[in-house]
């Protein structure tokens, strides 16, 4: 049986591959649940801080923070690109990078300079390969996003906005819709739009400590950070579910390939047996 040994080896190797993809699928499934919980856990803070920010911007109209002022001409834009650190998660990063790239091309066409803040390895690698102007970056975020790691890279962009280096700040990431569906989105962070803050119910002014300006400054920085944090958390949930789906597909494919190879192997074996029997029979007939 010449071919059957090779087929057996092939089956073995694909079975091993399948074991790996299956394990990765299960790991991603359990991580996905945790990532979703984390995403939900970040929601109360985002909502509360949005409320307070909305209230402050209404209660205190005479002080306008730079984040709230819309600039007449936008010459330079900043873009925060949130991607995963690791691959093997289907088209997740490709989709978000493609979206970012087409937007960047538009901006470049309009003569705008682009500064990039890369959160996650994949976006950073891509941007440095194609020669984007990466101003700040962070990678190796692990499974749980931590505010501590995001403060630095986001501050670089916020400082650039305040100093006038950039006139608008955008952020792109993958929004988590459900386990099967994730969607790349690109939204504007700065200047903060009034509609996004929404209106606050009730109307009163606060007693400020130490003073209104400092409180508003700190609050708005935290608000933007919480938006970025939430996007990162959402991106992580998307990553895990995309990986789970991709690995499930890979395991299914491996299963199909194995069953095809098994069929081939059995046919080969049968043919060999038939041949042997017919040889014996014809040998017996000759005697």
């Amino acid at each position, binding site marked *: 049986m010449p071919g059957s040994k090779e087929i057996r080896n092939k089956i073995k190797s694909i079975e091993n591959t399948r074991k790996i993809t299956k394990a990765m699928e299960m790991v991603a499934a359990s991580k996905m649940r945790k990532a979703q919980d*984390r995403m939900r*856990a*970040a929601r*109360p*803070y985002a909502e*509360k*801080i949005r409320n*307070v920010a909305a209230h*402050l911007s209404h209660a205190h109209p005479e002080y306008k923070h730079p984040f709230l002022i819309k600039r007449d001409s936008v010459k330079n834009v900043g873009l925060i690109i949130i991607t995963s650190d690791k691959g093997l998660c*289907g*088209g997740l990063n*490709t989709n978000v990078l*493609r979206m970012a*790239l087409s937007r*960047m091309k538009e901006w*470049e066409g309009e003569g705008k300079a*682009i500064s990039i*803040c*890369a959160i996650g390895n994949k976006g*950073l690698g*891509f941007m*440095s*390969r*194609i*020669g984007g*102007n*990466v*101003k*700040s*970056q*962070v990678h190796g975020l692990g499974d*749980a*996003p*931590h*505010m*501590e790691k995001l*403060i*630095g*890279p986001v*501050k*670089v962009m916020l*400082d650039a906005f305040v100093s006038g280096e950039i006139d608008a700040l955008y952020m792109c990431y993958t929004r988590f819709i459900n386990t099967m569906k994730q969607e790349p989105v690109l939204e504007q962070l700065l200047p903060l739009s009034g509609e996004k803050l929404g209106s606050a119910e009730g109307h*009163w*002014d*606060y*007693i*400020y*400590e*130490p003073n209104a300006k*400092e*409180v508003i400054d700190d*609050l708005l920085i*935290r608000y933007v*950070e*919480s938006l970025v*944090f939430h996007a990162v958390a959402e991106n992580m949930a998307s990553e895990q579910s995309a990986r789970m789906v991709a690995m499930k*597909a890979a395991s*299914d*494919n491996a299963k*199909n390939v194995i069953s095809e190879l098994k069929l081939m192997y059995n046919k080969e074996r049968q043919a060999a047996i038939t041949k042997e029997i017919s040889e014996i029979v014809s040998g017996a007939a000759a005697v």
Partner: protein
Amino acid sequence: MAMTIHVDIVSAEQSIYSGLAEFVAAPAVRGEVGIYPRHAPFISLLRPGAVRVKVPNQEEEEVIFVSGGILEVQPSVVTVLADTAIRGHDIDEAKALEAKQAAEEAMKDKSSKLDYARAQVELAEAMAQLQTIRKLRKKDH
């Protein structure tokens, strides 16, 4: 029964405490503040310290450590937006610098002009690979 006030203590990463309280003390930048129900609207930055919450019908106070943040008081609701990281102008600045340097390092020896053609080829390749896999999968079923 004593009057109560609703207290929410949340951080960016999780909701830490939510419930009714008779009294809340928080470490504001200008010294600790105590808040009873129907306090005037008040907003303050917090320094690192403990937030104490007197829960009704419970002898012991709930003590929650915060590393800074913002305290917001409305007549019936107290919200503590707690920081999860120690903040400070210098610390933030150092972090920003670190992120900047990391980026500069990653960008070293790279062409400075954004090469759209190359980027598009790269993405197109990745998409083509995915498409092929998808097609193969369909054929199998």
